[in-house]
């Protein structure tokens, strides 16, 4: 089977790649393009470590074929910061120590970005339900949720 040609906008840049039909978008990001920020924790959509934003929607890149990316716009964890300036969500994750091992962190940050894009003022319960698809085994979610709520406040211009 010949490889498939795919053209997509990834983190603001036009990207072209060849992939095998059965390769997931996660495989493509990691093994073809070399963006290894999205992680494989399960490969079945149950952990959220591979989260990306596809045409404005939060999705698991492991549940999408690479060929489906043709013509789409994708944001990965590598595209969240503006150059060397961290996004407020990233900054708040650091300040609140909302990461321990850091493996689930890229997925959580991408998911939080999608949450706050859609709902800039979530309640704690809304944040917890939105992030229920992002497993974290280190933190017990406490500091993660605090970081999310604080980042939301900063992005609304309500806090430092």
């Amino acid at each position, binding site marked *: 089977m010949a490889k498939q040609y795919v053209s997509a906008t990834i983190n603001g840049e036009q990207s072209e790649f060849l992939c095998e039909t059965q390769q997931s978008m996660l495989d493509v990001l990691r093994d073809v393009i070399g963006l290894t920020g999205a992680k494989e924790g399960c490969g079945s959509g149950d952990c959220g470590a591979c989260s990306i934003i596809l045409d404005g929607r939060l999705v698991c890149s492991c549940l999408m074929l690479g060929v*489906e990316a043709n013509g789409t716009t994708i944001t990965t964890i590598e595209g969240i910061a503006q150059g060397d300036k961290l996004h407020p969500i990233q900054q708040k994750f650091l300040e609140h120590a909302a990461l321990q091992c850091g493996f689930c962190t890229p997925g959580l940050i991408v998911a939080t970005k999608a949450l706050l894009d859609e709902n800039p003022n979530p309640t704690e319960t809304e944040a917890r339900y939105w992030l229920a698809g992002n497993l974290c085994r280190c933190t017990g979610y406490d500091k993660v949720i605090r970081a999310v709520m604080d980042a939301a406040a900063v992005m609304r211009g309500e806090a430092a």
Partner: protein
Amino acid sequence: MSNLSYAAPTSVDDAVKLLAGSSGLAKVLSGGTDLLVQMRSGRLKPDLIVDTKKIPGIIGIREENGGFVIGAGTAGAVVEAHAGLNKAWPGLVEALDLIGSTQVQGRCSLAGNLCNASPAADSVPALFAAGAIAVVVGSKGKREVPVEQIPTAPGRTSLAKDEFILEFKLPVRPARSSDAYLRFIPRTEMDIAVVGCGISVTLNEAGVCTAARVSLGAVAPTVLLLADAAAILVGHTLDADTLAKLDAAAQAACKPINDKRGTIEYRTKVAGVLARRVAAIAFDRAAGKSTGKAH
């Protein structure tokens, strides 16, 4: 080695031709949230994937003759964000809101959830309760099929090899009508339903039920539409006696299995519990007493 082909046709005709012409196993891809998991686990080894998302009309929601038409490939998250559907069919919306994670809802579709033909699919009892009609396209043209006739057994549907669902039609809503869906899972999110229950009702001005559809998931090989339970509701308000009868009817309809997600005994009891709770929410909504989320 895999010889998997992929095509993303831009018309119904092209898609149907691809499906009809495939010599091996052809699978329709919409959201992919079940298909990719099955491929990865090796349970499913398709030779051809037909991605239907580029077909005009298969994604999107429109109002038609007072009812709604939902494109078969529309992502759950799009349905959840639709104000009109939230008002008319809150139960169906909340069922979609319960499928997997936020991430999964960004991709999963009603057609995929229905055609995966899992008895535990969250949106399916809500679709059954809603009396949705599937618009099926294939080599022989278009046909309209009540959704409860689509799944036939776990993982099997009544669709022919060259057929797929283009869209769903939701009927016109009479006044004082609403629906609700609840499912029971061990956690608060991310689990497959141990039991799911969807109920749609129409009330008269006195609050008496004039029409009802009751559906249960995960208690039999396919999602069930319970005519007996619906009949118990019609002609009654939700008094204690009616609730008790509904509970009993739901339990009586169960033919579950013991598996890693629940026992026969537990599923049966919880089916009764959920039927009562869902009916209460649906009645309240239909009577205009509540508009909030059920979970």
